[in-house]
């Protein structure tokens, strides 16, 4: 199987990547991360091995860009992004936007573990590959994240 034209790859992956990034960094930062993700993917694209797992590959890049974005934001003197921490009020889509606000306050690895599990729907093996850690570490991250969330989230 040869690589599809990049445009098709972009069209096939834009929605899951968008969702994943909104979950990780919020709506406002998602757009920049999305641009960075796919422009980086375009640069590396022809060097991909045939039969590479494109789904996991693009999420790996998106995950890295989300971490960069968080670091950049942490360095900024004024937290400008707080106003949009919750996803836009879009009626039926978000019964509990606050819960995901809590997710975005978790440490980066835990946050990624939650997004990979509940947004990207990846099994632990794949999530581990995206995060560049062992499967056991991926499980531990998710477990720690759920424990932390349970403390904060009362309902």
């Amino acid at each position, binding site marked *: 199987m*040869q*690589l*599809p*034209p*990049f*445009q*098709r790859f*972009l*069209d096939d992956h*834009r*929605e*899951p*990547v*968008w*969702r994943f990034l*909104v*979950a990780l960094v919020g*709506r406002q930062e*998602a*757009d920049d991360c*999305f*641009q960075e993700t*796919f*422009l980086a993917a*375009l*640069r590396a*694209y*022809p060097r991909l091995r045939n039969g590479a797992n494109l789904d996991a590959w693009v999420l790996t890049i998106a995950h890295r860009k989300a971490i960069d974005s968080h670091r950049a934001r942490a360095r900024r003197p004024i937290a400008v992004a707080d106003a949009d921490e919750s*996803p836009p009020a*879009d009626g039926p*889509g*978000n*019964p*509990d*936007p606050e*819960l*995901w606000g809590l*997710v975005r306050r978790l440490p980066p690895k835990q946050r990624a573990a*939650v997004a990979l*599990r*509940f*947004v990207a729907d990846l099994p632990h093996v794949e999530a581990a590959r995206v995060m560049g850690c062992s499967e056991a570490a991926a499980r531990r991250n998710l477990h720690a994240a*759920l424990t932390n*969330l*349970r403390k904060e*989230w009362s*309902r």
Partner: protein
Amino acid sequence: MTHLERALRESAPRGDADAAALAARRVAARAAEEGGADIAYAIVPSPLGALGGVCSRRGLLCLSYRVERLDELLDVLAGALSPRIVESPARLDAVARQLEEYFAGRRQRFELPIDWSLARGFARRVLRATADVPYGNATTYTEIAGRAGSPLAVRAAGNALAANPVPIVVPCHRVLRVGGGLGGYAGGLERKRFLLELEGALEG
């Protein structure tokens, strides 16, 4: 699944198809502008129907009448030239503008760099010779075969023209049979006749 896990799943950010599509269009536009993309394509309108236009860094690579098979063409290009292919109407702007002028009768020569990568050897020489046939003129397959260096290879010249990746701009419609028969045309003879009449090369 625990209550918390169910809540995480149910309240996960929803897909926002419009936002994702918009963001993807900006990626494609930036890839085309900033040079990340090796190949850009767009649908270009014309009185002969929509055309699939494809440009490389060197110039116009294809102008296809078969828009419904553009995906297959892009697959071939991804394998043969580069998979860094994005949709970019902006990169096809000059092509679209010159075609519009041509069809409005305001342009007789295309000033577009052409990427000849898709034609090799004799076929490329045939297409280059055809590119020099002036507006409103007609020549013959025999004549073109000769100009491409093999006067006897008339059938091969016909095949090269049938496979012309950039019709209209490389005016294979100006090549007719000896005796004036229209010959063939990849876009169908209706289109060939239309182009020749547009240029005043056919009576009636």
